[in-house]
Every structure is written in C-alpha cells, then in structure tokens.
C-alpha cells in the first residue's frame, strides 16, 4: 500500500520505526565509527594540515605553505629513498607473482604429501616479521651466514650483502620474497576454482600444457592476479620493517645501510618524523606517497582492462 494511501497515523508510526531502526544500527556501529573517526579520519585530516606547516610535535605548528613539498625537490635523500622503493616494487612485484603462481601450479598437482608442502610454503608467512628480520641478518652475514656458505659450496661469488651498496636491495628482496607463501595460497584457491571442463575442452581441441595455461588458467585467475598485483604493489611502496631491521646498526638509531642503499621511502619518512622531529615534512612525504600509490593503482586498473578476464564470455 503506497504511503500516500495509508492513514497518517500509520505513516508516522512507520517513519518512527524506521528512524528507531536507523538509530539502533548507528548505535551498534558507533564503536567502529568513533574509532574510525578518532584513529583514522582525524589523523589523516591532521596530517594534511601539518604537511603545510613546520611542526616538531612539541610546539604549535607554524604555517609554511608549500615549503615542505618544495624541499622534497631538492632533497637528495628523498629521491634516493623513492628510487630505492621503486626498485623494490618494480622487481619485487613481478618476481613475487611468478614465484607464487609457479608454486601454486606445482602445489595444484595431485602429489602425495600435498598438504605438508602447502604448509611448508605458507610457514614463512607466519614467522613474526621482526624475528625473521633478525634471522636473515645472520643468514646474510658474509663471514658466518648460510647463504654465502651455500654460494661458496657452489663456487659462486659471495657478496657482502648488507655491507655492500649493490647488494642491500637484493637482500631486502630475498627477505620479502621468502614470504610469497601467502600469495601462493591465494593463487592455489583461484586455481581450484577454474572449471575442469574448460581444461577438458581445451585438451580435446589439442591444446598442450602451455596453451592450456595461457588460454584457460591465466584468463580464469586474472581477477585474482589483479588483486595480487595491486596489494603487492601497495605493500612494496610502503615497505618498512624488513629494510629497517636489515639496515639497523644499533638499537634505537635508524640507518639506511651503506650509502643509504637500503633506505626505503617509509624509513626516511620515519626518520624525519621521529628522529629529526620534522613532522610537517614527514606529513608532506606521507601525502606524496599516498598520491603516488593512487596514481600507480589507477594505472594498474586502467591497464587491467586489457588482460583481466571478467567472466562475461
């Protein structure tokens, strides 16, 4: 019965009920909404304001306009940290995808002990990140570490890893790629969802394993691949813990490794905020990172139309 034909008292009662239901819903959602407003929305808005100020956390912020953003243009360490981060992203994302997808394809085969292999692949992901960071410091030790010991046995060059500017970023990539198990498990779930009749139809048409991968598997898992690319890219653009721990020389001091070769963008942001107490500059860096991340994500999504199969045909 439309509201225009209902008696007025019924319409009022229904509006009251709906309002009460809305208020109840808001009340139950209020802990999250209050928490979001206090711990996320307010700090984000505050950092936008601080990015236009000279602020050391202990004295009132002093408005300086675009000075922090202009300073970035002339700050060599800023560009070094950005270059380091883009290096890690451009290499780490595709290598991580190849390793995780390759691992998932292998794990998808019906072999004995498959649950054990799956668990082993996922195990590095559940090791606490700080513990694994310190373990890797010793694994990569050029004197006693097992990595160089293995390279020595194989008669390969043994780099100085954390003490050589050329090998600092590869060391970081080793540590981050060690945890591709998380992505592998997601790809494995996607592979399990590919309808088997598509493979049968392809096999009947004479498609070999590679053709079946390119024409069946790859398009069918492409939405998951897109998700992995975006999430992995964002993670690399924000990478902090692994390079921070690997480059650390003494407790309670921050180091960027030899010639700042291991200084990621987030590490330099942390240094500016909590070591030099330049909160305004650090806030500006945070917003630049946000814009760079948005731009890169938008580029990926625009490009995705060419290779992501949406399942409509």
């Amino acid at each position: 019965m439309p509201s225009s034909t209902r008696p007025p008292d019924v319409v009022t009662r229904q509006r009251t009920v709906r309002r009460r239901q809305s208020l109840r819903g808001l009340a139950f959602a209020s802990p999250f909404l209050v928490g979001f407003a206090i711990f996320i929305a307010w700090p984000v808005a505050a950092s936008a304001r601080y990015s236009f100020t000279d602020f050391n956390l202990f004295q009132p912020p002093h408005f300086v306009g675009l000075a922090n953003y202009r300073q970035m243009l002339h700050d060599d360490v800023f560009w070094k940290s950005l270059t380091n981060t883009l290096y890690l992203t451009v290499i780490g994302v595709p290598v991580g995808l190849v390793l995780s997808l390759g691992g998932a394809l292998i794990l998808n085969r019906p072999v004995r002990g498959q649950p054990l292999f799956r668990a082993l692949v996922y195990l590095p992901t559940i090791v606490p990140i700080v513990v694994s960071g310190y373990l890797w410091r010793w694994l990569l030790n050029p004197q006693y570490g097992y990595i160089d010991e293995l390279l020595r046995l194989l008669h390969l060059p043994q780099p100085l890893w954390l003490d050589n500017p050329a090998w600092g970023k590869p060391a970081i990539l080793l540590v981050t790629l060690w945890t591709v198990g998380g992505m592998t498990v997601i790809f494995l779930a996607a592979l399990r969802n590919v309808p088997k009749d598509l493979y049968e139809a392809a096999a009947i048409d004479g498609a070999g394993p590679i053709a079946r991968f390119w024409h069946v598997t790859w398009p069918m898992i492409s939405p998951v691949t897109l998700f992995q690319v975006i999430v992995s890219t964002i993670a690399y653009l924000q990478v902090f813990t692994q390079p921070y721990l690997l480059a650390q020389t003494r407790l309670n001091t921050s180091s960027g490794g030899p010639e700042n070769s291991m200084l990621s963008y987030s590490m330099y942001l942390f240094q500016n905020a909590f070591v030099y107490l330049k909160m305004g500059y650090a806030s500006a860096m945070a917003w630049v990172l946000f814009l760079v991340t948005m731009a890169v994500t938008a580029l990926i999504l625009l490009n995705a139309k060419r290779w992501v199969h949406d399942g409509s045909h």
Partner: protein
Amino acid sequence: MKARNRLRTIVMAAAAISLGLTTAACGSSGGSSSSGRTTVTFSYLWSGDEAKSLEKIITDFNASQNKITVVGVSSPDFQKQLASMSSSKGSFDISDNFGNAVGSWASKGILAPLDSYVQADKLDTSDFVPAALNQMKYNGHIYSLPIAVHDFELLYNKTEFAAAGISSPPATMDELATDIAKLTKVDKDGNITQLGLGNPDTGTTLTTLGYAFGGTWDGPGGTTPSPDNPANIAAVQFYQQNITDKYGAAKVAKFTAGWGQYMSAQDPFYTGKVAMVIDGEWQPVSIPNTAAKLQWGVANIPVPADQPNLAGTTQLTASTLFIPANAAHKQAAFEFMKYLTGPVGMAEFTKSLGNLPARTSLLDSNTYASIPQFSTWLQNLKSPNVHALASQPYSQQYATDLANAFKSVLDGSKTPQAAMASVAADAKQYPAS
C-alpha cells in the same frame, strides 16, 4: 515487545558508557601524592644490572627524606620517551638521555629550563667538568645536569703486543700506524684473522681521531658543523690508509661482519680478534666480569708527532638528567636531580656503573680505586684537550649524515674529502643554532 525495546536501550546505553569510560581511562596517568609525600616518576633508559644499581640509589634517597617518593621505571625506548613528552600531561617527571640531544630538545621546548631552580638553590655548577656543563646549555640556559661522563682511551691487548714485539703502547700517530701493521694478521687466502685497530663504533672512533688530529666537528664557536675541517679529513684519511685501503674494504667488512656482540664473551677485543680499540671507561668494569683472562692495558690516544700540545686529547660524552616541560612535579624532580648529581649520589651511581663522575672534585676520590686501570680515564678529564660534540638543534641530523659519510669511506666508495664535503653540503640545510 516493550520489554525487549527497553532491554535493547539498556544494552546500547551500557555499551556507550563503557566505551566512554575506556577512552577516559586511557588518558589518565600517575604522579598523585599520597601520605603527604609527592610522588616523582623517574623513567630511565638504563636496564639490567645498571637499573638495579639505580634502584638502590632511589631507595636511599627515599629513605633520606620524608617529602618525596621517587618511583623508578626502566624504559629503554627512546621513541616511547619522546612520545610521552609530546602529550600535555607527561607520564614521568625526570628522565635521562645523552648530552648531544640537549640542544635539539631544548630548542623544541621539550625540556624545562633549570636556571630558576639552580639559582634558587644556589647550586654551584663550577664543580662540573666544563666540557660536560657546556653540553647542558642551550642559548645560555641550563636544561640538564650531567650525572656521568664518558671519555675514550686506547685499550690494547698486552699478549698480542708481546707476541708482535711491541714494548709500549703508541704515543704518536706514526707509532699507531706501525703497530696496526704489526698487529694485523692475514691468512694464506688473504682473509683477515686479526685487525690491529678495531672499531666498536665508527662514529665515536673517527670523531675522536678527528679531535686527536687537532680537528673540530662544530667549528671554533661550537655552533656550526665543520666536517671538512682539514684535521678531521686527515683523521679519516689515517684510518682509510692504514686499514681500509691497506687490507681491502671488502676484506675488512667481511671480517667485521663476523664479530660477536659488543661486550659479550664473543666481543672481538676480548677474543683477540682486534688488538687495539678506542673505547670508554665502562670496559674496566666489563672486562673482569666477561673476559677475566684478557691481559690488557690502556693509554691516552696517540697524537701527531709534530703536535705534542694535543697530548691528552679525548672526546667526552655525557649522560644527563632532565625534567620534561610537561612534568607535573618539577620542583620535586629537581630535588631528586640535585641528590643524584650531588657528590654522594653521583659517586655511588658512577662507581656501580663504571662511569666517570661529572664532578671534578670526585676525579681523585678513592671511590674508584677498586676498578682496575680506571685512573687513566679519570685523570684524562683534567686535560685541557677534552672535547665534546656540540649540543645544537642540528646535532641528530649531523650525527646521521656523519655516520653515512664514514660508512662510505669504510666501504671504499668515497674518499674522505668527498665524504666530508657531502656532509658540509647537507649541513647548509640544517636548522639554525
């Protein structure tokens, strides 16, 4: 239906109230007085045995008077310390840090100035070691008092000296260079097995050598970074020529990467991997406990043969006590600070930690007689050639840039001149003193 609605309303109200109470509870802090005594919270960075020694002194202070109760909290986390001082109501009334942070923190309003308390109590600051007291000041005001100071001497392994035929420790840089060569051992594959001069901390070793060559890191007035001072470059060049270039940066890096933890049983000086180190006065306390069989000696840091006037040069660092600007009980905190930095408290504290007293009147005290070879460090504080890095707003950024520059020299990627020139260029962006 009505009963269910009422119950829902009660549940929602209870949830909202508990959320409000939880949020309010997060903002509360201690420091309230009880039994007429003011409670002063002392959050300190020391831990382990050093914290135990400090707690004993706190107990003694509490027992010596009936107006103040000091509660000690061991919190060796710089970030947590800084975060606490950024809120309007602090969680502690007094804490400690190092002298080179004073200028940076004072310029940002983090520290409470102590001039009014010092003047009101007529505290005589002339007894403090001059280089230490200078670090406590910013723009002519006192912001900290030193509880202990540290200086650096040349420690050497007597057994290795005897094996290399060296009869006495080096007094000049030429002798040091000769001894480094005699004491560095390389195996048949070219890998270093013993290094003549070790490096517990690159920044400290090279800045101290800079002073020993007659240089200065903060300009003649102590307010302007001067990394490219020619004597500083000569010092870094000395290290590069006698160690890095001579034995190969990669070989040295590989050797140092395998060192055990500093001051543990696997410390490279304790285990004979390095024959000499430039290190601080805590070693005479640590070595008998950790490496009792080590035969070691100590001497003043060598100086250039043509500059004997530089004899006794050393670098001083200070452990300081400060009162944050947001402390609730500043006067009471200053009373405790006076006790800790007074002759009695300072002697007890520095003896138990194996640190040097910051008061010149304690340098000849018998308190430290039981610590082996401690007198070399003690007596060096009387030298006119005791230097300290400036405590200026730029100090922390300067320390980071110097550390990066030193590393680039040690890994062979930059010459000392280029490395120091790059720091000088960066220094133009530092905040003004």
